């Protein structure tokens, strides 16, 4: 012990001490803030074991080890005060940690950052304090083909695909074995959803994470590779820029109405038909089903991209979503078991991992709402006994699509007749197309897809390899689908008329004013 201290004392002068980055933190006030706003998740003792912790994946941070994912310091080093402030201010997207800026005052946030440091002796030991790494600025041309090609080259050569998969959807061969330091299952990040990156989604954020690693997770630091000249700093930037390019430029905005343009040809039945290039993509976030027993707090399908087209007779609906596995996949059974053991539910014990399939459901009311306002709909969560909903359901095994009526989560009655559904799985992405005639004979049960109407629609998703089935699913509330009609030429008549009339009137007014002006001028002369 004495010797350990001796060595520490010897090493202390070698470690650079960072300048104090924030004003003095009042840990007494910080404790009050912590107890009121943070302890519910992070626990009174900071061990990440508050009452809500068992309902979360990822779990809340355990402060006692002073191990932080999002830092500006080298792998394993303590975060700087600025790093802690950033996590508190901005939150950790994709987790339950909200941004506290605007929710707590500047002083409260600063004090609570001071208080969480008291949970670990490392912060008290000044020899452990670390300075932020010196990050270079982002080189230009990051969205160009040459830069992305370099980035992709290093994506392959440094083995990113081992966990993140060939196309970056977190489906690499090592992904099902991943655990965090506490032994909880952890997903390799889906690099196509940069808006869910814990440390931010910009190329600079990604570069910083590559340099520092994400402590407590399997994500290592790549700084040693620059030191050992395996790659250059610029090449690491290119990698970051390549990763950034996998996600949309901006986080997807949620829009209420899916517009299905009318096309001339037959509506596409295949998910890889070129006609889909003509349809806008709509993003719908899905969240855990926490309304009915058994609730599910860790939904794996975070959202679904929807496209729609129609040809006047048939509607084609294309749904694509990221899923690491083509369930059931025996390689993921162990992971599934760990997820079920980690995330608390309404069962007395964790359910046993089983080879569930992936599933997706699209929901409509049986009939379009009528009458004043026309907004009444069945219950969003799969209808009810007395007011069922009409659903299209797809499963990955057996690979089939059916239409039917759901009367609550528990009851689904298949309707006669096949539903056309075609799905393909490609590197962590499902692409599914449902097609159905706009009008069908069974008008009592099957929604009639009328053009020009707002048709209520909702979505449900299951990832079998995360133990999802039945009520354990990801849900949405009601949105709308609208089948657009092509603009008839008649629509242009009235605007043109209005313009002509306006122009004519304008000219008349001007002429009269000028005549009056001339007359007045004449009188004055």
């Amino acid at each position, binding site marked *: 012990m004495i010797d350990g201290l001796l060595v520490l004392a010897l090493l202390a002068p070698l470690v650079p001490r960072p300048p104090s980055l924030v004003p003095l933190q009042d840990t007494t006030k910080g404790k009050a803030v912590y107890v*009121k706003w943070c302890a519910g998740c992070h626990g009174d003792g900071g061990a990440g074991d508050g009452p809500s912790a068992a309902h979360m994946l990822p779990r809340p941070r355990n402060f006692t080890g002073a191990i932080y994912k999002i830092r500006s310091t080298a792998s394993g080093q303590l975060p700087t005060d600025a790093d802690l402030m950033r996590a508190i201010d901005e939150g950790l997207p994709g987790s339950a940690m909200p941004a506290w800026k605007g929710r707590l005052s500047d002083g409260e946030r600063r004090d609570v950052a001071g208080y969480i440091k008291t949970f670990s002796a490392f912060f008290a030991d000044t020899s452990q304090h670390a300075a932020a790494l010196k990050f270079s600025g982002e080189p230009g041309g990051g969205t160009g083909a040459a830069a992305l090609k370099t980035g992709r080259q290093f994506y392959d050569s440094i083995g990113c695909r081992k966990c993140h998969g060939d196309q970056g959807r977190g489906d690499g061969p090592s992904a099902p074995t991943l655990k965090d330091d506490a032994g909880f299952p952890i997903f390799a990040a889906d690099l196509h959803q940069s808006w869910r990156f814990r440390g931010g989604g910009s190329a600079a954020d990604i570069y910083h994470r590559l340099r520092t690693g994400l402590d407590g997770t399997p994500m290592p630091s790549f700084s040693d590779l620059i030191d050992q000249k395996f790659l250059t700093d610029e090449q690491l930037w290119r990698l970051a820029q390549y990763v950034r390019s996998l996600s949309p430029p901006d986080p997807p905005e949620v829009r*209420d109405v899916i517009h299905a343009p009318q096309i001339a040809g037959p509506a596409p039945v295949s998910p890889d038909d070129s006609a889909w290039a003509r349809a806008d993509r709509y993003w719908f976030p899905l*969240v855990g089903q926490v309304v009915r027993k058994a609730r599910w707090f860790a939904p794996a399908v975070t959202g679904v991209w929807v496209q729609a087209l129609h040809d006047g007779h048939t509607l084609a609906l294309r749904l694509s979503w990221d899923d690491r596995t083509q369930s059931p996949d025996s390689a993921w059974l162990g992971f599934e078991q760990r997820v079920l053991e980690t995330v608390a539910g309404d069962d007395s014990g964790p359910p046993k991992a089983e080879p569930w399939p992936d599933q997706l459901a699209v929901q409509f009311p049986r009939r379009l709402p009528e009458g004043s306002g026309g907004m009444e709909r069945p*219950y969003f969560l799969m209808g009810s006994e007395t007011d069922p909903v009409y659903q299209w359901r797809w499963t990955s095994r057996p690979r089939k699509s059916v239409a039917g009526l759901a009367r609550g989560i528990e009851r689904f009655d298949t309707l006669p007749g096949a539903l056309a559904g075609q799905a393909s799985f490609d590197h962590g992405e499902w692409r599914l197309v449902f097609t159905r005639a706009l009008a069908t004979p069974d008008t009592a049960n099957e929604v009639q897809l009328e053009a020009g109407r707002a048709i209520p629609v909702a979505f449900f998703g299951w990832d079998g390899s995360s133990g999802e089935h039945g009520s354990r699913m990801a849900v949405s509330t009601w949105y709308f689908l609208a089948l657009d009609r092509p603009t008839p030429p008649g629509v242009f008549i009235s*605007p043109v008329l*209005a313009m002509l009339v306006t*122009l004519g009137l304008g000219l008349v007014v001007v002429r009269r004013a000028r005549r*009056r002006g001339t007359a007045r001028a004449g009188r004055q002369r």
Partner: protein
Amino acid sequence: MTAPALRRSATHPFWQAVGILVIAYIVVVWVVPLLPGSAIVPKSVVLQYMVTVLVGVLIYVSDNEERWARFKEPIEAVLAEPRLRVVRAVLLVVVTALVGLVAYGQVATTVAAPPNLRSIHPAPPAEITFRGRSITLTGLENPLRAHPESLALYLAEGKGVYYRNCLPCHGDHLDGQGHFASGFNPLPANFQDNGTIAQLTESFVFWRVAKGGPGLPREGTPWNSAMPKWEDFLTEREIWSVILFLYDQTGWTPRTWEKTGTGDGGRGTGHD
């Protein structure tokens, strides 16, 4: 523009009118939504406000003969003066184009989401059945408040209930922005807002928690609400304790029956 020219404009009735219209627009569109408890003003309402302001301005300028004449000066100048020929032409083209655009927008209607006419605090029933037991809501107070000595215990219990059940939607800050909130429309209730629990009696909140979305009357759009029917999950005491927690954590005080009377069923007056 030079300072004297600015001053001249500031006293000119035409530019005064323009100024008032611009200020009114800024206030209605940008300032009003910033006021606590307000939302973005719908376009149709903005138009109504602007027409009202315009009429007021016209009445003011035409009230006095000389002011009216001065008001018209710049307008007539643009219409008639040869030196302003370019301005005149540009104005004609712009106005014509605008009219065309507006007319097109009117005709080429696209399908929009139907308006969601939703009563946020619908009238509660006088009585509910909680797990087979009848509870009279009218005049009902939080029974846990009758034991002030145990309040800390109840609050701790309520906090646990909140974090285990309510957090994913209503959020760490109780502002309706939990990590599942983005999936729901309407958004989960924001308890920090002065328009939710601050306006309600605890018995109303008890009804909403116990019966959830499915227990809403038609005007509350029960088909949309993701609020669970908590009587399936929580005991009566757990619900009362989490209600205590909601008020304690946000700092609001519940409405009491003395203040609201018994007639409006526990809703805040002047709300909805």
